């Protein structure tokens, strides 16, 4: 292990020397190669529907996610509202068997999954949505979050039901397992093929949204404070730390992050609440903007459809409902009833999107960082006409940073630390999801795992060096490609979930399942 740490340290120390020789062009070159090699897939995923919706083109993938979440919401009878209270008692441990003490609790499974999703999507992604789609995007984001709770419920129930439990006591779960086992149980063909396809997209999604997007935005935030410098430097530092954790096995770094990240999340929401309290007189106006913008667009590029697309896209990217990653994260819980974990998991899009993303959107709207035309009350577009003009021309995480800075001038520093930690914890989570998909494809083994981990570290550097547009497009495309395969499988397997759900809730009602006294 020491050798590996040393190797990582040497790598980190030597690389700047080697890189100075070919300075300047690295970032550009990385970006160029990256954009040209991934463009075709991005175009395929975001291809517009053959017909126009309200006079604007509409990517089919957004429709796919919305329809999926709506179908699950209807099919399970609005489970996200009916079981909300029960989800909270499960997380509190009211129904946990005391004899299972020491096993993974509902709380732990939920927070582990949350630390993979709460992150830059909530900070940078929301800023992108509001920047392009206007405040109206928030409405669609909240709606997508609420509907997405049903998708999460479905996939996480299946994730626990069809996980693999090995002889040595470790567990492995995720869409690839329920695709294979669930399809077999229903005598349906194609489960194996779906599982392979999902695994491929999951690996790419781990490298995209779970890695490059994070590295990219972390770099944007740091360089926003210390001044501009090449992205590969941030990338190398991140890569070295991630390498130390996932290859070197230095658990203490990950453990510290896992403990600090929740407090960062609370601090972030706390700061947002204080800003909203101070500017309480504008909250009504902000909600008015969100409501009006949701249906009229308020002059935003693409009108209300533009707002809708942005809202749904960023919500899906942030809470990952229907994507399948959560099914991997939740599957280690100790429970005899798979439905309980499904119920717990529906809190995830609620906390992530309905609470945290909305906070960010409100702060951005209220802070006045988006330029409004005083004559018409509409937003002013930037020169290219692609997004709303901002007071300092920033976008993504820097826009959020600027918005929070209107309340607390020192907040960008806190946000920088939060962004780095969020990015880091998301990378650790996604390196795990990617690894699970990788070992599903190529088999388990130390060397095989090491290869994936090294690839993962290399992509951190690429992500930090590439420009935002190319990275966001690729990240989105991969995450959504996972959702295409996963939601397809969920449609075929949802009767199984319904059976489990009805059985569980009828036993809960009849008193067969009771609370344990503590």
């Amino acid at each position, binding site marked *: 292990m020491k050798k590996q740490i040393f190797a990582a340290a040497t790598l980190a120390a030597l690389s700047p020397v080697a890189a100075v020789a070919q300075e300047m062009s690295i970032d550009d070159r990385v970006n160029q190669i990256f954009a040209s090699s991934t463009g075709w897939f991005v175009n395929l995923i975001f291809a517009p529907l053959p017909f126009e919706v309200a006079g604007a083109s509409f990517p089919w993938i957004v429709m796919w996610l919305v329809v999926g979440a709506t179908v699950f919401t209807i099919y399970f009878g609005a489970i996200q509202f009916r079981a909300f209270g029960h989800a909270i008692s499960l997380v509190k441990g009211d129904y946990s068997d005391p004899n299972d*003490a*020491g096993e*993974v609790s509902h709380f732990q499974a939920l*927070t582990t999954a949350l630390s993979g999703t709460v992150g830059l999507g909530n900070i940078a992604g929301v800023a992108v949505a509001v920047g392009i789609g206007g405040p109206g995007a928030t409405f669609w984001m909240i709606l997508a979050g609420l509907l997405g709770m049903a998708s999460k419920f479905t996939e996480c129930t299946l994730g626990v039901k069809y996980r693999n439990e090995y002889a*040595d006591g470790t567990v*492995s779960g995720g869409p690839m397992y329920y695709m294979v086992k669930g399809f077999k149980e229903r005598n349906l063909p194609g489960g194996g093929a779906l599982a392979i396809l999902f695994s491929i997209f999951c690996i790419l999604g781990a490298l995209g949204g779970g890695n490059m997007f994070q590295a990219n935005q972390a770099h944007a935030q740091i360089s926003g404070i210390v001044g501009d410098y090449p992205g590969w430097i941030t990338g190398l530092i991140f890569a070295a730390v991630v390498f130390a954790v996932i290859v070197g096995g230095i658990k203490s770094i990950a453990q510290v992050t*896992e403990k600090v990240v929740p407090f960062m999340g609370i601090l972030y929401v706390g700061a947002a609440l204080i800003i909203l309290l101070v500017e309480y007189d504008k909250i009504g106006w902000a909600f008015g903007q969100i409501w009006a913008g949701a249906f009229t667009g308020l002059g935003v590029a693409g009108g209300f459809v533009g707002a809708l697309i942005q809202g749904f896209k960023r919500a899906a990217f942030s809470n990952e409902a229907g994507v399948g990653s959560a099914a991997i994260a939740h599957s*280690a819980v100790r429970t005899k009833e798979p439905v309980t974990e499904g119920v717990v998991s529906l809190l995830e899009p609620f906390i992530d999107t309905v609470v945290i993303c909305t906070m960010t959107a409100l702060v951005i709207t209220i802070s006045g960082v988006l330029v409004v035309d005083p004559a018409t009350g509409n937003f002013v577009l930037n020169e290219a006409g692609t997004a709303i003009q901002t007071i300092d021309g920033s976008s993504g995480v820097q826009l959020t940073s600027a918005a929070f800075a209107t309340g607390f001038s020192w907040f960008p520093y806190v946000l920088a630390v939060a962004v780095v930690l969020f990015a880091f914890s998301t990378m*650790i989570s996604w390196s795990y999801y990617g690894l699970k998909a990788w070992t599903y494809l190529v088999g388990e083994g130390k060397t095989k795992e090491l290869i994936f981990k090294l690839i993962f570290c290399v992509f951190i550097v690429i992500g930090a060096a590439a420009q935002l547009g190319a990275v966001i497009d690729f990240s989105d495309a991969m995450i959504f490609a996972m959702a295409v395969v996963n939601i397809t499988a969920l449609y075929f397997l949802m009767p199984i979930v319904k059976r489990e759900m009805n059985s569980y809730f009828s036993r809960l009602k009849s008193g067969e399942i009771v609370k344990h006294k503590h």
Partner: protein
Amino acid sequence: MSKTTFVVGLDGSDAGARALAFAQDRAKAVGDCTIALCYVIEWSPFSFQTPEENEQRHKRREEEIELAHSRVVDPAVTAAKAEGFDVVGIVKHGDASEILDAIAKERGAAQIIIGRVGTRGLRERIFGGVTGRLVASASVPVTIIP
């Protein structure tokens, strides 16, 4: 089933051994008596873990229980049995003060006997040590062995 049960908290330290010695003295005096030797592995369902830790958790838990038995509880049980005492060994995960009290309640114990461990660290200063919390919340008499 004997009439009197003593719950003794073991932690592998001298303090635990002193508590056991005291319990054995008392058991001799009382006569018909069971000593429940308990080792609690500190654990909270509300901690934050990485996905990898979760994956390994079940295995680790088994290992932790196994280790507690082989290193601390089983040797103590064997030694006490050799001296003719009626002893059971218990290993559980959770908060030591809560678990000891729960076992005492479950077994209808006459008292809980634990050794005093010197308080150390910030956590203990703020939340109080296991002894302090047990005394404050126990449902049966607690004897603390200095």
